């Protein structure tokens, strides 16, 4: 513990996909999201733990970086924290560098930069077990000698090496900060001296100034810090000229000297057993990355995922439905007839309950996605998609944010921080919300369950599962098409090649998988218990007041309908109806769409509330059955048809109905007027696309004789 301090502050940094977040979770007991692909952590995440003697330790998990070159926003975040430039976060007392023991040579580049920052360093050699299996033997004592810092072998996913690592952090905090472990050629040292002095004058410690001087040679045009330091740009230009005169190439100089040192270190510390046969991972890759079999396997995996969402969820959904209906009846029987009972039964239980029944589907979908992420298959999917991404003008890295968008657009948009080029990043932000997020799942499931027959297409694959897959693919392909439009118009720029690290296939850790699925379910339940509950109560009030003077001569059903139409919700619905009528929707769908601009699931809860309030005979039938039974009061024909349902799903594929997504787009697109302009463009084009597509489906379907 540093003298005079009560808290030891530790920052964790490392190359992407080295198990940093797993190590962070093992140290702190937290449950940050982990995945077997690069770019899971794109912002700083903080946690705490107690040391062996009860000392308080604060831990900061920084985004994965291959270097401190600050080429992308996430690398800039890491650099700012380590150099103490980030005013929102503390500067660490110790930096924990997580290295992948299998790829130690590549990981040493970042480690060699961090060692020079003037802060005590500990190295965790993570995935040490995998290295042993793959025949990589590391001489740890020799590596400690070469690096001049403590090195601890760890297997974070099994918690191995965590206690020695904690002790090493405390020991390192009391040691002097390490410094550069190799010497530059004399001519280069002299050429860089004025630049180094300039950085020391700006407040950097000598060793950090030496690191920064080398780093700036390779990234002079991208560093915003250059503008803030008087005389730095001139010093940098002079240093570059002097290096050139001495026969060096300034932009490559840092890579050359560091990799030369890394080569010497690994020659003395690492021995690799020559493996003649192909590993299991290589054999799987021969199929998963094949030009023809790879895409076919990808499609097959997706079909199985969406089919399992339908097949396995149904019994669980039925059970939840029964429990909610029974609970609603039980609570209702305790209350006297009146508005309060109606609020509880028709507002809360019908509204929130209609969303809660989709919990099994959320759990199954995220179990499947988690298995693909944790096993390493998602990286293969990104590799397969790279050719498509390049064709539309996007960087291959854009695929990971788009994949994250299947869960929620907000982390998807934040994951674009790994993309270096601002135009590529903005183009990706603009299309991520087109990926079908989990909030759309209840809408798709409700409509598919009610209006798409469970016909078996081939054994094990039904029309319902395929319809769901088509909705997901529709969003994905249109996202690519829209990105192509942006990249050829407003965000024109060159296409850059992608360097993608393919991690070996691993058995997913059941604990990590269970934690990630449980987190997703918790979030769904929290949303249902807060935002959706509040909106259901408000929508119930709008559907109940003002009270109408109903015509007692009418049937009970007609009286209820009269009351609903007289309510504020009914009046709003009739106001909206002319706009949604061309799409085949009645006022009830119109008002449910309007309410779901706050959050998409609210479409389902609003329909649940409307049919709860309009329920005439204590009918407990599920919302899907109510929609199937609903008749047009004028024609007596079914009010909702498969054509309307498909049009409605297409509308939800494209429409941006999420306040949080709009907010994060504003922020990530630059904030202020520029951010709001991009967010407005995103909202506008998606709404136009949704309305136009839903109209084409409805009008086209009718013209082709599919009814409506």
């Amino acid at each position, binding site marked *: 513990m540093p003298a005079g301090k009560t808290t030891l502050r530790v920052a964790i940094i490392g190359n992407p996909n080295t198990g940093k977040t797993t190590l962070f979770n093992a140290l702190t007991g937290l449950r940050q*999201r982990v995945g077997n692909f690069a770019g899971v952590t794109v*912002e700083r*995440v903080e946690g705490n733990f107690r040391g062996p003697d009860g000392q308080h330790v604060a831990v900061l998990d920084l985004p994965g970086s291959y270097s401190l070159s600050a080429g992308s926003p996430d690398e800039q975040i890491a650099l700012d924290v380590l150099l103490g430039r980030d005013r*929102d976060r503390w500067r660490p007392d110790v930096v924990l560098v997580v290295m992948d023991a299998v790829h130690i040579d590549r990981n040493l580049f970042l480690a060699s930069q961090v060692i020079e920052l003037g802060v005590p360093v500990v190295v965790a050699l993570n995935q040490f077990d995998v290295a042993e299996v793959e025949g990589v033997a590391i001489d740890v004592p020799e590596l400690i000698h070469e690096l001049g810092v403590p090195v601890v072998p760890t297997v974070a996913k099994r918690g191995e090496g965590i206690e020695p690592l904690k002790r090493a952090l405390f020991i390192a905090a009391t040691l002097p900060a390490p410094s550069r472990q190799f010497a530059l050629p004399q001519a280069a040292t002299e050429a860089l001296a004025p630049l180094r002095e300039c950085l020391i004058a700006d407040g950097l410690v000598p060793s950090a100034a030496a690191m920064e001087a080398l780093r700036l040679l390779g990234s002079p045009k991208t560093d915003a810090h250059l503008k803030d330091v008087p005389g730095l740009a001139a010093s940098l230009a002079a240093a570059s000229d002097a290096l050139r005169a001495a026969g060096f190439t300034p932009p490559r100089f840092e890579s050359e000297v560091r990799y030369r040192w890394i080569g010497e270190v690994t020659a003395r510390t690492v021995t690799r057993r020559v493996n003649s046969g192909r590993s299991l991972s290589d054999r799987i890759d021969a199929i998963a990355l094949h030009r023809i079999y790879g895409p076919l396997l990808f499609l097959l995996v997706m079909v199985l995922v969406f089919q399992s969402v339908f097949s396995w969820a149904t019994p669980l959904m039925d059970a939840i439905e029964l429990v909610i209906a029974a609970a609603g009846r039980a609570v209702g029987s305790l209350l006297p007839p*009146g*508005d*309060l009972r109606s*609020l509880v039964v028709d507002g809360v239980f019908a509204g929130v309950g209609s969303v809660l029944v989709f919990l099994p589907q959320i759990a199954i979908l995220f179990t499947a996605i988690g298995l693909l992420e944790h096993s390493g298959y998602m990286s293969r999917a990104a590799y397969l998609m790279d050719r498509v991404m390049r064709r539309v003008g996007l960087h291959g890295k854009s695929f990971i944010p788009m994949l994250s968008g299947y*869960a*929620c657009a*907000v*982390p998807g948009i*934040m994951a674009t921080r790994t993309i270096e080029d601002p135009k590529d990043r903005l183009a990706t932000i603009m299309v991520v919300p087109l990926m079908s*997020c*989990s*909030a759309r799942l209840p809408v798709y499931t409700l409509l598919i369950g009610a209006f798409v027959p469970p016909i078996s297409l081939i054994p094990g694959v039904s029309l319902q599962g395929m319809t769901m897959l088509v909705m997901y693919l529709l969003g994905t392909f249109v996202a690519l098409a829209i990105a192509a439009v942006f990249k050829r118009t407003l965000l024109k720029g060159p296409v850059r090649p992608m360097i993608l690290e393919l991690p070996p296939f691993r058995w997913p850790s059941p604990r990590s998988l269970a934690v990630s699925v449980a*987190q*997703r379910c918790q*979030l*769904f339940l929290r*949303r249902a218990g*807060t*935002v959706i*509950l*509040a*909106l259901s*109560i*408000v929508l119930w*009030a709008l559907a109940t007041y003002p009270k109408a003077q109903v015509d007692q001569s009418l049937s009970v059903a007609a009286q209820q309908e009269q009351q609903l139409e007289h309510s504020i919700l009914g009046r709003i619905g009739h106001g909206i109806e002319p706009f949604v009528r061309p799409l085949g929707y009645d006022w009830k769908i119109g008002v449910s769409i309007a309410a779901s601009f*706050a959050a998409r699931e609210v479409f389902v809860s609003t329909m649940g509330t409307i049919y709860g309030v309009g329920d005439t005979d204590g009918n407990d039938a599920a919302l899907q059955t109510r929609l199937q039974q609903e008749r047009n009061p004028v024609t007596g024909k079914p009010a909702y048809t498969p054509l309307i349902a498909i049009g409605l799903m297409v509308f939800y594929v494209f429409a941006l109905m999420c*306040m*949080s*997504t*709009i*907010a*994060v787009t*504003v*922020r990530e697109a630059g*904030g202020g007027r520029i*951010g*709001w302009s991009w*967010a407005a463009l995103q909202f506008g084009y998606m709404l136009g696309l949704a309305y136009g597509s839903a109209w084409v489906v409805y009008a086209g379907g009718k013209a082709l004789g599919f009814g409506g």
Partner: protein
Amino acid sequence: MDLIIVGTIVLAAVGFIAHRAWRTVVAARKPKGGCGDDCGCGH
């Protein structure tokens, strides 16, 4: 009495939604940091 209880619950729900909406707008203004806890992403 029924109406008072119902009115209180509905007003509380309106207040909660307004508060959430305000927090979302504030989150859009912030240049750095995570998203709101109502976004569903878990970050």
